């Protein structure tokens, strides 16, 4: 599409505009990402053109087409549907536009760099923490996401697999919720009625489930600090500021901090590198992560997703007040 | 009839409309119309379909604001439109369009919006409803939803409701169109007795006989204008029709000049032993080509059910219908139409017309095969046929493309007739073909039926309106679902009425 960037701010350090498609704007996590992107874009001196595909792959395709029409030189996507994005990647490849994907690894097609923290790792970390905390015995409820969401599914599968392998004494009750707080609260309530001896809860999204869960427990008189025999061990996911506060207050035990800031920072870092013609190889990076090559035509920078606990004494965990955590940087 | 005299002596008018003009889009429904209704009168309002009568009624009852002009009650200006309560104290009305609410019980319909203050006591409401209906000899369960009533019963409920308001001024817009002879008589008796107690009526009807029977004064409207107001006694029927139509031509004798049906020809329609349990039993009749046969009966006699069974709108439990030698599948309109039938259904709003479609489309709905081949429809061909129907039936319309919803009642009925005739039927079944239609249109419609018969079709007219039955060569009378009489042409009105009411001599 031979078109000049008419209205845009013109050329920049990278020598062209960069298109960023946000996957959705209705979760806390992605909103933080949306907030970080322009911030880092400015730091890197990039001319950003942004769109929002509202969790709809057809919209993503349309957005990419219109971004290509605007002559972007590189593209950052976060396809929530890893299969359906393949034709789009193909198109971009034909136009020689490098792509960085955030959060998910496409099933097919070439990608310059995948920037993500492994969702399976979230599930595993949560499983290990709960399994250790419960000493391999008990019942845990898992507030799952939406079946149609790859991230939710990865967390669910990894959690289940890890539990059955490492902690066969723990019974998992899976509660699908479509990422909806009220559905989660209702199902948790019902589960508590049926299983008064519940010992643990894994919430796959703190933004959706934190407040509802705490409130259900409060109503049942089960919101008691760790150490109390009635305490239910809770691990959350995402690392939004409220979760960190709840950990400090002793209401929940831990969370897996999803690095929203790093997603934005390194996505733009790599897309700029791509436009500048840099090449990367598998191996350790300068920012505590590893680049791997899961399949040809695609590299993946696996960002760290730290486990957060109150005192940071659990192996490999950070303190809830650690300023490094993105949840503590939100103003 | 001393009331019109007293009116002349300067009694204060109960209601008056001054220089009312009302437009609907480009249609002028009322053009500078003034009307004064004197205290204690029964005042008739007549005019052809679309003359603007019902529009004047809705202005007089505060449902619709006039574009210009004023309304007065007893010399006082009318209350603001929003104050429905004040309007209802001044005027009660039976509208032309039924205003019962089908899902609510009869009792609640009677006392709609005046169920009493605070919490409603359903028991006492039912009692009051029972008393009210007993006075009208309407024998229905007051707890039944109104949708279960027959059309006639609904009409009676409406009348009872309007008369129970205690208003001193009551408007009746075509109240008799759905009633049989006895019910009409009862209505008139009630109107007369209310007049004695000082109630004033504005009465609208297309039956001029009724005007002469109960009314004191008559106002004629034509083309949205007021033409004349006169004491009934001073305006002869000829003059009245002339005022309504604007022409000095009298009514034509429809029976005359039609060739007698050929004797011995195979019948066009043969009905044998038709029956639906509980509705009608063992009805047999034949109609020869060129013959017009009437099927008469009082309300609830089952005559419409017979007609609907013949045309396939309903499925009879027993018996056969033969149309031009073939026996169409019972209960299938399609089969009946293919066998060579054309019909006018009882209620044009329900089964007669598709309001949003044009005259041409409505008139050709039954004959798509004439509009083009391979299922294609040529709009030019269609509009030609539509224009022909407009000419043949004297339909007042802008053109074949005009939607039928924009036509007056009489002209809509003509479109239904055009649809019935579209397939050049061998058998024509007309159910209440002139209900709610003005005198002139009635003449056109019946004349068309006669012309169809003259052209060799067998015509069956099903009606309880004696005017409809006059052109018939013979009339079959139904009473409580059974054939009770056969009357050759030349019957006297009272004979036929007696037979319809089941009185044998």
């Amino acid at each position, binding site marked *: 599409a031979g078109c000049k960037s008419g209205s845009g701010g013109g050329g920049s350090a990278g020598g062209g505009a960069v298109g960023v498609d946000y996957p959705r704007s209705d*979760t806390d996590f992605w909103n933080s990402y949306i907030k970080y992107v322009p911030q880092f874009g400015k730091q890197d001196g990039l001319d950003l053109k942004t769109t929002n595909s509202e969790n709809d792959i057809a919209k993503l395709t349309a957005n990419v087409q219109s971004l290509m029409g605007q002559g972007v030189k590189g593209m950052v996507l976060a396809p929530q549907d890893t299969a359906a994005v393949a034709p789009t990647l193909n198109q971009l490849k034909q136009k020689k536009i490098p792509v960085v994907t955030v959060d998910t690894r496409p099933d097919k097609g070439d990608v310059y760099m995948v920037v993500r923290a492994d969702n399976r790792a979230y599930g595993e970390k949560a499983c290990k923490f709960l399994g250790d905390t419960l000493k391999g015995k008990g019942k845990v409820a898992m507030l799952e996401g939406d079946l149609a969401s790859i991230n939710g599914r990865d967390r669910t599968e990894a959690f289940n697999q890890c539990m059955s392998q490492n902690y066969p004494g723990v019974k998992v009750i899976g509660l699908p919720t479509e990422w909806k707080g009220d559905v989660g609260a209702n199902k948790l309530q019902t589960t508590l009625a049926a299983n008064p001896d519940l010992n643990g809860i894994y919430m796959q999204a703190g933004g959706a489930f934190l407040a509802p869960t705490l409130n259900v427990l409060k109503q049942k008189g089960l919101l008691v600090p760790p150490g109390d025999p009635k305490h239910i061990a809770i691990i959350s996911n995402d690392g939004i500021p409220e979760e960190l506060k709840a950990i400090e207050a002793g209401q929940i035990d831990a969370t897996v901090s999803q690095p929203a800031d790093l997603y934005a920072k390194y996505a733009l870092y790599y897309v700029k590198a791509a436009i500048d013609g840099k090449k990367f190889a598998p191996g350790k990076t300068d920012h505590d992560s590893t680049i791997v090559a899961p399949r040809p035509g695609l590299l993946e920078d696996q960002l760290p997703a730290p486990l957060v606990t109150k005192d940071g004494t659990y192996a490999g965990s950070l303190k809830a007040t650690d300023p490094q955590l993105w949840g503590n940087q939100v103003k | 009839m001393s009331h019109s005299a007293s009116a002349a002596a300067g009694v204060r008018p109960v209601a008056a409309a001054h220089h009312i003009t009302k437009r609907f889009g480009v249609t002028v429904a009322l053009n500078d119309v003034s009307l004064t209704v004197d205290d204690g009168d029964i005042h008739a309002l007549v005019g052809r379909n679309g003359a603007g009568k019902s529009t004047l009624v809705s202005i007089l009852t505060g449902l619709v604001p006039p574009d210009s002009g004023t309304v007065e009650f007893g010399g006082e200006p009318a209350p603001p439109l929003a104050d429905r309560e004040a309007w209802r104290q001044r005027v009660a009305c039976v509208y032309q*369009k039924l205003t019962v609410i089908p*899902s609510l019980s009869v009792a609640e319909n009677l006392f709609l919006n005046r169920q009493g203050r605070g919490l409603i006591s359903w028991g006492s409401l039912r009692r009051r409803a029972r008393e009210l209906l007993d006075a009208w000899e309407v024998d229905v*369960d007051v707890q039944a939803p109104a949708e*279960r009533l027959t059309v006639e019963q609904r009409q009676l409920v409406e009348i009872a409701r309007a008369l129970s308001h205690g208003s001193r001024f009551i408007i009746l817009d075509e109240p008799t169109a759905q009633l049989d002879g006895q019910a009409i008589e009862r209505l008139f008796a009630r109107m007369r007795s209310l007049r004695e107690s000082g109630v004033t009526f504005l009465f609208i009807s297309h039956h001029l006989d009724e005007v002469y029977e109960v009314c004191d004064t008559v106002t004629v409207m034509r083309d949205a204008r007021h033409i004349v107001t006169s004491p009934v006694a001073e305006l002869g029927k000829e003059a009245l029709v002339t005022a309504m139509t604007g022409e000095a031509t009298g009514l034509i004798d429809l029976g005359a000049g039609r060739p007698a049906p050929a004797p011995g020809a195979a019948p066009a329609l043969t009905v044998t032993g038709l029956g639906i349990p509980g509705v009608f039993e063992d009805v047999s009749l034949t109609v020869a080509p060129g013959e017009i046969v009437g099927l008469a009966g009082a309300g609830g006699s089952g005559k419409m059910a017979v007609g609907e069974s013949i045309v396939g709108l309903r499925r009879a439990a027993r018996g056969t219908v033969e149309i031009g030698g073939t026996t169409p599948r019972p209960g299938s309109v399609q089969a009946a139409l293919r066998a060579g039938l054309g019909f006018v259904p009882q209620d044009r709003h329900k089964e007669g017309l598709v309001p949003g479609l044009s005259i041409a489309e409505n008139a050709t709905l039954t004959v798509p095969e004439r509009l083009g081949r391979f299922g294609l429809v040529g709009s030019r061909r269609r509009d030609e046929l539509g224009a022909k129907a407009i000419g043949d039936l004297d339909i007042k319309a802008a053109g074949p493309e005009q939607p039928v919803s924009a036509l007056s009642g009489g002209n809509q009925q003509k479109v239904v007739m055009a649809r019935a005739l579209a397939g050049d039927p061998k058998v024509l079944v007309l159910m209440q073909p002139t209900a709610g239609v003005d005198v002139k249109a009635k003449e056109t419609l019946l004349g068309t039926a006669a012309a169809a018969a003259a052209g060799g079709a067998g015509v069956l007219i099903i009606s309880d309106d004696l005017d409809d039955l006059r052109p018939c060569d013979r009339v079959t009378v139904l009473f409580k679902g059974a054939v009770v009489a056969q009357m050759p042409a030349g019957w006297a009105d009272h004979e036929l009425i007696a037979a319809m009411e089941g009185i044998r001599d």
Partner: protein
Amino acid sequence: MTETQTAMAAPARGRITAPRLARLRDLALVPAIIVIAIVGYFVNPVFLHWDNLVNVLQQQSEISLLVLAEALILICGRMDLSLESTFGLAPGIAAWLVLAPGVTHGVGWLSGAWSIPVTLAIGAVIGWINGLLIVRFRLNGFIVTLGMLIVLRGLLTGISGGKTFFNLPSSMVYLGNAVWLGLPASIWICLVLYALAIVVTGYTRWGRALYAIGGNTDAARAAGIRVDRVLWGTLVLASLLAALGGLLLTGRLASVAASQGNGAIFTVFAAAVIGGVSLNGGKGTIFGAFTGILLLYMIQNVLTLAGVPAQWIGALNGAIILIALIISRITSGQAQE
């Protein structure tokens, strides 16, 4: 005029049992509820425990206010699709106005005490706008409220930036959490409002006017009912109820998610219709609507207790709803087009 017309009377008399039946229709779902209760017991005896029953009642209490609101509007022969958005937006705006900027990303223009009045006021305003467009400008209600559904949903996403509002003031979460006489306050509120609505729709002029308008608007107008005023009032009332329902849910979850209410309208319609409220107006009762939503939540609860595989819950739930819809239409006796 003295001949009795027995011929006419006969068919009418034959139908004498009909209104009785119509009244029974209110109870049409009671057998279904009993069946589900029994099935639930066999699936998991916990189902009939007091705690679980209270849970079911509490879980349906918020959305049942939406059902009540929709039922009132349906009885008038109208529709309001935007209720689901009001359910989220009204408490959402209140939260946004009272929460401090920064961590809780509100604007902090009002103090926490304002949250309940603001929520209800927003509900009323939305209802008023719907009324303006539908009643005053005579636009089609389905169309207007479809548009409003999309706009209001977008507004909530806009002000919240898609994030969940946390750390709500205590007045805002009180109703959704309080326990009165051993039962959650939201159950009391739901039951009292339903009881009130049953009395109003059954025994007051205003309530009967709803049925009259739904049955035949012109006739209602002719009978002196102030159709526009009643309709407008009903729309405002319905949005108020939706806002209140949203407030209760907000309280129970101690938060307002940006997606609060999304997709709820399908459940709301299904509940009202299963409960015997007609989409054509003028028919159905508030009690019926209540049995409708109760049944749906009982089914949900049984499915959760049964541990049906996650992927099949949707299909199973849908199939049960479809069957319930079909059965409820068949028992109501009439073909509906």
